[in-house]
């Protein structure tokens, strides 16, 4: 049995940590690229959203490398993501691949028994004891937390660094070292080392960089290929960015939602504009925008795949928030046809606008 999971930002490190400690064979598919998108779009319904197509690409590339079991998380609506598994199983079957498809839906939707059944499909392949298995999950969660913290730090400090690109280089080095690690414990050691290293980066406190909140659909903002590496680009420009939706946020949020205590801050912030959960992460998107205005950010960039239903609702609401709070928001819609040049032009124009507002260039004219 060879397990694979589709890419989502840095979660491949977690996959590695968990299955290394469980002693189960796994593969990490090639990173998302033009090629995987091409393969994915070829085998996906035309109207489907970008995450579906990229995931299909991951599967097919993973299968070529020998994967025979795919794990994905599920959801039960109203956003399309919950229906992904059904279509993906069908498509892969049609292509003649014989696979195990493990869909981790919420226990409340499929019943606890079915949930445990699906979990045991994976865990029965491990020879470790139950305690060790639970420990593997703990290690995985620790890695997830650490890498998200490191990434958040790098993105935020990029605006303050004294030596240009130091944060970016350090972040990339951290990722490449972590994936080379031979055991989960070593990975945690490496991550901890880099986390400390970020604390000793030379900063110039007098700098006042532009601060941007990245909001929108969770997959497209986390998976760097799908948003054309917007966070790396902004780091190059010396812009501080903050993104609240991370895989570790998602994990904590799903866990807390069992008790109804999830994302209290975002719920409070979004109450005025969108008091109900409408699917996807629309309410979070609105909440984050309001919170960004409260925290003194200069602007926000919303990213979502073409046709994303919840984010379209958000897009209708954002101009009002923008007007009410005097807060610029740029919306970028991505799909497999997005051209990089036009995309960069829009980001640069937006940054120019923020810079001028900040320095009051116009008032001096």
């Amino acid at each position, binding site marked *: 049995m060879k397990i694979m999971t589709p890419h989502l930002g840095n979660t491949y490190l977690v996959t590695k940590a968990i299955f290394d400690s469980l002693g189960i064979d796994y593969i990490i598919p090639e990173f998302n690229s033009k090629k995987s998108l091409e393969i994915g779009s070829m085998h996906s*319904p*035309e109207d489907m*959203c970008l995450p579906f197509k990229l995931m299909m690409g991951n599967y097919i590339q993973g299968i070529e490398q020998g994967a025979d079991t795919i794990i994905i998380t599920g959801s039960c*609506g109203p*956003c*399309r993501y919950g229906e992904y598994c*059904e279509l993906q199983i069908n498509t892969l079957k049609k292509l003649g691949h014989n696979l195990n498809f493990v869909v981790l839906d919420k226990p409340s939707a499929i019943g606890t028994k079915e949930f445990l059944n699906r979990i045991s499909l994976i865990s029965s392949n491990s020879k470790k004891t139950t305690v060790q298995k639970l420990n593997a999950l703990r290690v995985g969660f620790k890695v997830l937390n650490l890498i998200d913290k490191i990434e958040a730090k790098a993105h935020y400090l990029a605006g303050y660094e004294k030596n240009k690109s130091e944060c970016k280089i350090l972040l990339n080095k951290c990722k490449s070292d972590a994936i080379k690690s031979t055991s989960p414990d070593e990975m945690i050691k490496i991550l901890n080392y880099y986390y400390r290293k970020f604390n000793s980066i030379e900063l110039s406190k007098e700098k006042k960089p532009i601060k941007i909140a990245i909001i929108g659909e969770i997959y497209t903002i986390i998976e760097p290929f799908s948003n054309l590496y917007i966070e790396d680009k902004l780091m190059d420009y010396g812009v501080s960015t903050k993104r609240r939706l991370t895989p570790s946020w998602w994990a904590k949020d799903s866990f807390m939602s069992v008790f109804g205590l999830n994302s209290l801050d975002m719920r409070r912030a979004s109450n005025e504009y969108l008091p109900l959960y409408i699917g996807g992460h*629309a309410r979070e998107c609105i909440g984050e925008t309001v919170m960004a205005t409260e925290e003194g950010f200069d602007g926000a960039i919303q990213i979502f795949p073409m*046709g994303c239903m919840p984010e379209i609702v958000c897009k209708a*609401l954002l101009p009002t928030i923008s007007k009410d709070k005097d807060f610029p928001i740029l919306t970028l819609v991505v799909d497999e046809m997005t051209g990089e040049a036009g995309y960069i032009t829009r980001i640069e124009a937006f940054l120019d606008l923020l810079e001028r507002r900040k320095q009051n260039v116009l008032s001096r004219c």
Partner: protein
Amino acid sequence: MKVGIPKGLLNYKYSIFLEKFFSELGAEIITSPNTNKQILDEGVKHCVNEACLPIKIFHGHVASIKDKCDLMVIPRIMQIAENEFICPKFCGLPEMIVHSIPNMPKVTMAPIYATSKEKLYNWIISTGSMITNNKKRIKEAYYEALAEQSKFKAGIKNEGYKLNIVLIGHPYNVYDNFVNMNIVKKLNKLGIGIITEEFIDESSISDKTKELFKKPFWTFARTAYGASTYLVENKKINGVIYISSFACGIDSVVIDLIKEKIKDFPFLILKVDEHTGESGFDTRIEAFVDMLERKY
């Protein structure tokens, strides 16, 4: 008080209920005209670009009557069956309208959970009390409206045609003659009888959806999939026509599921958006009918 009821989205199914309920409460009902070019243009002007055609048209309906009424009914339909949804855009509809169209009158914001009479009553009370404080009167109006609605039977079933097709799609595409450019009349003229999903009983639909790995969590996805595959497998029809609005998230899934199931059975997908031209639309229907005639 003047209550405005826009004739868009699921109004084709629930207009009787809403009109009866509000007129029983003593309100004057203002309905928008049937969808026309002007309404579409208004909708496109106000709505976010990325939204689908039915949502844009709904914006147009609202804009056409917003100055004539004191209260606008915008049904935020969350669920019409247990554990099922309609579409995220329905859940955020009042917000979309209020933030996109300027100078709106008061609107109904309460969510509708129409899974049972008791649950729907929550919406009835909160909306009814915007008009009158008399709880007894609201309750009476509610029961009157329910009785009226139960008499109403939606759906199309033509008899006596040699060739028959099932017309699948969201109700607001199937029953809005502007959006679908009178497809029912056109097909009848070409000698094709039509049946819609309302004439398939619930048990056959749920039998079909049980074959799926995961039960679809959208009400219209479930009925569309169940009805079409049931009719195809029992050889009750000669073809399937699906009217889908461009960029509809639900349709992108259901169409693929149906295709997967019925394999090479005649299946025509008509995509509609605000740029759809009628002649191209006609050509596709005629070609499909020609094909059916040759086949059978």
